């Protein structure tokens, strides 16, 4: 069998059986070996019980999606088979626990039993090492050196006597199972490189990006799938002289972030859809009082409690419009894990420059997936300082002064020349309550006109033809990866395809979108929600006719699904 560039592995079992930690450990080992990886996981909203799944793809080349067709499916129990068999690729093979799982006859030729539970009991006296037998079996099929995994196990269980030994024994025992499949997927070995790479999740990239941007205050309330950011910054922020606090709810979180920013600190909160709903009124306040804040929304399935552990892009409307009145804000959507880092820096820069709330939209898939990325350069990052009142004489000071670019110097407590009262009530240039038609109109212009430069100036993400003639894809956020992969494959097939992903969705770069699609026969807008929120936005902003492909099953798009979309009408 000739060497291939990528392999897709899916582990499936019951929540609590160590499926997720097995996936993490294999991903780490692959990253350590120099492979690019991307993962995708689903798990139930409960702590114990319920099906969970961990898929990872590895390759010697950068990869843009987690893959559709599973090459190696590992079933910890019967339900794992029942729920995942249809993801198997045409040549995919199955590893299954011999005591737990029955495989239909037709699949038996490409299925191998693994004594997961038997060996775990034999070695460790319990089922706890079951997942390590499975990990071992995967390393066997992939012909992976187990040394990196052993090192990881030793590190993880350094404090628990005997546990590391049992796990390593289970790993070795597992790797001898399914011996005839050894080397079934010979991978092109990774190119030796000195380049710095990181294995990191979207949430972590946001947290570390916030540190790079100079965040000094973070407040949050636990919510899936955003809690990682709260937890990571709880440890890390005090290490750079900042504070992280867990508040009583999302309202208090954003309120305290506003207070900290008013006092001069770069401040952020992170939440998911339900939390963003609670923050709505304060988002309008931040826009009116012109206080910079960054709000991360790791979207999950909605509406209401919805699908807390599944992915969706259905908070777009809420991010764009949530809050009463004409409440200004900037909405930015990173398109990859690496971009989560840079978009967070951008979010702080936009917030500080424009004195406005910035909502950073990710989703469960992007927030929790692990990916190998290039280590961001920190010495070339540009941080935008806030325009303050320093040096302005008190008598002259107008907090909300009309200026050419509609941005006014902000007073910071402690600074004698900048005293003012921040307020959400309509106000004159001094910040005094005032309700005349001239003032309401003038301040409305101030709040909105200051954002205009972003329409033309905010960086976007794109791939493929600059002006595609066959299919133009427009999307936001995490669909960028599978669309990018599909574009490469469609281009090889001779199609003229390209994508345009505005990273800043509010204010919306309508002119640039109109320009991008000028030669395209078809304009396709894939998004993971029910009502086609982005498609509606584009139509409202540009008036262009487009094909809305709103998919809402709790799962991300695959590159193959995007290719099907591109080929569909051509075939018709």
């Amino acid at each position, binding site marked *: 069998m000739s060497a291939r560039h990528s392999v897709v592995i899916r582990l499936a079992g019951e929540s609590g059986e160590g499926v997720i930690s097995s996936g993490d450990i294999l991903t780490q080992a692959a990253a350590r070996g120099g492979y690019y990886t991307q993962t995708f996981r689903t798990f139930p909203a409960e702590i114990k019980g319920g099906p969970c799944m961990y898929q990872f793809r590895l390759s010697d080349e950068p990869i843009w999606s987690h893959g559709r067709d599973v090459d190696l499916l590992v079933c910890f129990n019967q339900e794992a088979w029942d729920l995942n068999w249809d993801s198997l690729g045409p040549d995919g093979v199955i590893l299954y626990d011999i005591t737990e799982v029955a495989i239909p006859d037709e699949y038996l030729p490409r299925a191998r039993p693994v004594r997961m539970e038997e060996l775990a009991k034999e070695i460790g006296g319990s089922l706890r090492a079951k997942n390590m037998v499975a990990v071992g079996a995967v390393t066997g099929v992939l012909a992976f050196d187990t040394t990196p995994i052993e090192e*990881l196990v030793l590190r993880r269980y350094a404090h628990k006597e005997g546990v590391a030994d049992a796990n390593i024994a289970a790993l070795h025992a597992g790797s001898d199972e399914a011996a005839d499949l050894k080397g079934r997927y010979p991978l092109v070995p990774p190119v030796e490189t000195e380049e710095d790479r990181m294995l*990191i999740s979207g949430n972590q990239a946001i947290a570390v990006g916030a*540190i790079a941007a100079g965040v000094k205050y973070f407040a949050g309330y636990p919510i899936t799938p955003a809690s990682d950011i709260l937890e990571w910054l709880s440890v890390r922020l005090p*290490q750079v002289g900042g504070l992280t606090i867990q508040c009583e709810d999302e309202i208090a979180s954003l*309120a305290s972030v506003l*207070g900290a920013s008013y006092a001069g600190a770069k*401040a952020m909160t992170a939440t998911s859809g339900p939390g963003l709903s609670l923050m709505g009124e304060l988002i309008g*306040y931040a826009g009116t009082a012109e206080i910079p804040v960054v709000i991360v929304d790791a979207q999950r399935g909605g509406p209401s409690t919805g699908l807390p552990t599944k992915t969706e892009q259905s908070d777009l409307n809420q991010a764009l419009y949530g809050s009463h009145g004409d409440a200004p804000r900037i909405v930015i959507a990173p398109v990859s894990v690496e971009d989560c880092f840079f978009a967070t820096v951008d979010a702080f820069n936009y917030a500080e420059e424009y004195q406005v709330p910035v909502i950073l939209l990710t989703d469960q898939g992007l927030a929790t997936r692990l990916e190998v990325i290039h280590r961001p350069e920190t010495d070339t990052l540009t941080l935008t300082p806030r325009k303050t009142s320093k040096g302005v004489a008190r008598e002259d000071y107008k907090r909300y002064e009309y200026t050419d670019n509609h941005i006014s110097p902000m007073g910071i*407590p402690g600074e004698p020349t900048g005293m003012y009262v921040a*307020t959400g009530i309509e106000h004159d240039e001094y910040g005094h309550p005032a309700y005349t038609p001239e003032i309401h109109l003038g301040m409305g212009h101030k709040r909105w006109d200051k954002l205009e430069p972003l329409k033309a100036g905010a960086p976007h993400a794109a791939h493929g033809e600059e002006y595609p003639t066959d299919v133009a894809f427009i999307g936001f956020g995490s669909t960028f990866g599978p669309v990018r992969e599909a574009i490469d494959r469609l281009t090889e097939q001779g199609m003229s395809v390209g994508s345009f992903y505005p990273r800043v969705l509010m204010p919306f770069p309508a002119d640039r979108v109109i320009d991008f699609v000028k030669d395209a026969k078809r304009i396709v807008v894939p998004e993971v929600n029910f009502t086609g929120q982005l498609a509606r936005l584009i139509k409202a902003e540009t008036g262009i006719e487009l094909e809305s492909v709103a998919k809402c099953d709790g799962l991300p798009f695959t590159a193959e699904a995007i290719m099907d979309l591109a080929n569909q009408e051509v075939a018709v």
Partner: protein
Amino acid sequence: MSTRKPSDYKSELKPIWCPGCGDFGVLASLYRSMADLDLDPAKTVIVSGIGCSSRLPHFASTYGIHTLHGRPLPVAMGVKLANPELTVIAVGGDGDGFAIGLGHFPHAARRNVDITYLVMDNEIYGLTKGQASPTSLYEQKAPSTPFGNPEDPLNPLALGIAAGASFVARGASFNTKALTELITQAIEHKGFSYIDALSPCTTFNNTQESWKELVRDVAPDHDVTNREQAFELALKGGFTLGILYRQERLSQSQRYRNILDKAKASDIDTMLDSFNARKGAAIGKPS
């Protein structure tokens, strides 16, 4: 010695309150207290919610934040945590603090947020024209309670003591000398200091005269460090004026200072290193 006068803290805006409103007395007490403490206006932040009394920051020549209905406490916490050098005073009414914003009150108290919370309690919603508030009395008639209020009032002092406020006091707008002294002590207190200031609404719930009959000073021998005694006073009928409870314990700011001291200094490059794919670190888990 104080070099600033109460009038130095007045802004150019005149209060918009009705004639005779208790809030005038509270504002006068606050001006005087700030002068007594010689607070630097540039390092003082008055944070309010929404309501008649929440207009107060606009009438002071300090920094101020006129926030949303019910949200002065978490905003004030953020200000104080971001810059512990600032004197932070949260103000508002009983509707703002004990209805829409009540969820924040016990948390500010238990965290011992190092701010002063001054509630102008008139037992009514003034700005929306006289509806019953959480401190309105049972059977009190109001536009929203035409058959008489079917609810019992909340006891904010008992709640404050129960939740862990480290300074709990009651004052009255019609006794500005004593109220000034309470505010001064509250601002000097390290931790969450809460003052319920009786502040009659002369337009919609004129209790100016009746409350004067119901107030009494705290007994000279009251032990302010005794939580049980403080509860007794809080639960007693009528209004006991003075400091009911006072406790010395680490404020939130001091506790976070301790966290900063405990945290191992790091930098962005070290943090990025923790994700190094080749070293196979435990996926960025902080060391």
